């Protein structure tokens, strides 16, 4: 039932934008002047199969065979197009121009952050299996001010990573082939299954305990929550790394061309332990 109602509303909306026009013939205005006066068109209610045409721009195309109120043949503005040979079909007419979309008025605004806790340089710790690891949390808060079109859903944070030695490239499927990635260059961080921090929608998005948005009451809401909550535990599985991994947490206004917001937060993991 709900789907049916939605469909009806949609159909009605489309009809509201249809304007059916019929140019008035010269006979109705006298013999002088242009064959058709497009400044004077009658707007008719929507109908099909009556020789009229639907158009969003209320224009009549040159050469069009427009029915006249007095039944006289129309004077074409250009020579008529020859009829195609039997079995030959004329090309489809170009689609009508899409109605211009209003520019998005939504925007994102940072209220606080982005932040790393702790920040600065973290010395990795060795684990009993020989690996090394570090832990930090990621945070940011976007403003929610509908009266001024400030929409937290338009705000996203993203984490970037670079490594200081070529051999310290993250050894996982997210950074393959290795030859495509260089040291001392920022790349958006990702895991081995392609997920990334802070994405609200799309194939990179996830909504999990260590990578999600929530509302001010603490309820998980990855679509439009104001507060980003994240945690990262970068790990050197072999324990052989000796350089640093540098991370930046940046904020973006995705409703306005991914415009940067605020000042990125920084943290570094020093593997040389």
């Amino acid at each position, binding site marked *: 039932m709900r789907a049916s109602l939605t469909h009806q509303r949609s159909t009605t909306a489309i009809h509201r934008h249809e304007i059916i026009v019929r140019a008035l013939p010269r006979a109705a205005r006298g013999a002088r002047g242009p064959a058709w006066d497009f400044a004077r068109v009658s707007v008719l209610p929507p109908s099909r199969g009556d020789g009229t045409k639907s158009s969003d721009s209320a224009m009549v195309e040159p050469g069009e065979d427009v029915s006249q109120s007095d039944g006289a043949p129309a004077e074409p503005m250009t020579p008529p197009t020859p009829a195609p040979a039997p079995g030959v079909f004329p090309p489809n007419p170009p689609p009508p121009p899409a109605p211009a979309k209003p520019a998005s008025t939504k925007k994102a605004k940072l209220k606080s952050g982005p932040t790393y806790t702790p920040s600065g340089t973290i010395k990795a710790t060795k684990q009993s299996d020989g690996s090394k690891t570090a832990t930090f949390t990621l945070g940011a808060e976007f403003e929610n001010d509908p009266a001024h079109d400030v929409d937290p859903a338009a705000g996203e944070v993203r984490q970037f990573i670079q490594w200081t030695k070529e051999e310290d490239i993250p050894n996982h499927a997210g950074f393959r082939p290795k030859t495509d990635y260089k040291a001392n260059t920022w790349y958006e961080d990702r895991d081995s299954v392609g997920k990334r921090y802070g994405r609200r929608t799309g194939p990179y998005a996830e909504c999990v305990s260590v990578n999600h948005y929530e509302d001010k009451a603490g309820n998980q809401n990855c679509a439009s929550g104001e507060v980003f909550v994240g945690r990262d*535990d970068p790990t050197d599985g072999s324990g052989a790394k000796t350089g640093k991994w540098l991370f930046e947490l940046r904020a973006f206004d995705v409703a306005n061309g991914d415009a940067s917001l605020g000042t990125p937060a920084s943290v570094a993991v020093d593997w040389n332990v």
Partner: protein
Amino acid sequence: MPVGAHESTALKLELALRSGRLAVTIVNATGGEQRLWDWHNSWGWYALAAQARERTGRSFEIKRELRDWSKNGPTAFVLSPGERHEVLLDLRDGSWEIVAAESVDVVHLQDQPLELRARLRIEPTPEAERLGVFTGTVFSDWIVSTPPHDWLPASTS
């Protein structure tokens, strides 16, 4: 299709061979929820492995290779009471290694029947305790694989 199962107090592990892959099914045999680590984070990556043995009794393990994590966190999923969760393992996808006390000749292994079982092991960690994730070791029953072993990695570590 060989199938094996091993009962434990909390989780039951079943193993089958399917089109060159190991189909490992984890069954929550308890009346309450059980939490397990997601397989791609550093807590869950090494949890599943396979053990194989020859007729001579020589055995080896096939486990995940070492890797890094740049984006990583302790995430888990829930198994409801009685729920079955199947994981298909492709031991030839490049992320597995054969580990044995002595060198293993993979070509030689292809000529003889092998016995195979799956293993789930989750170590106790502060994160597991905090999030209530299952810890312990569970094995499936042994199943027999007859040549050709299209699930067997091509090389050893």
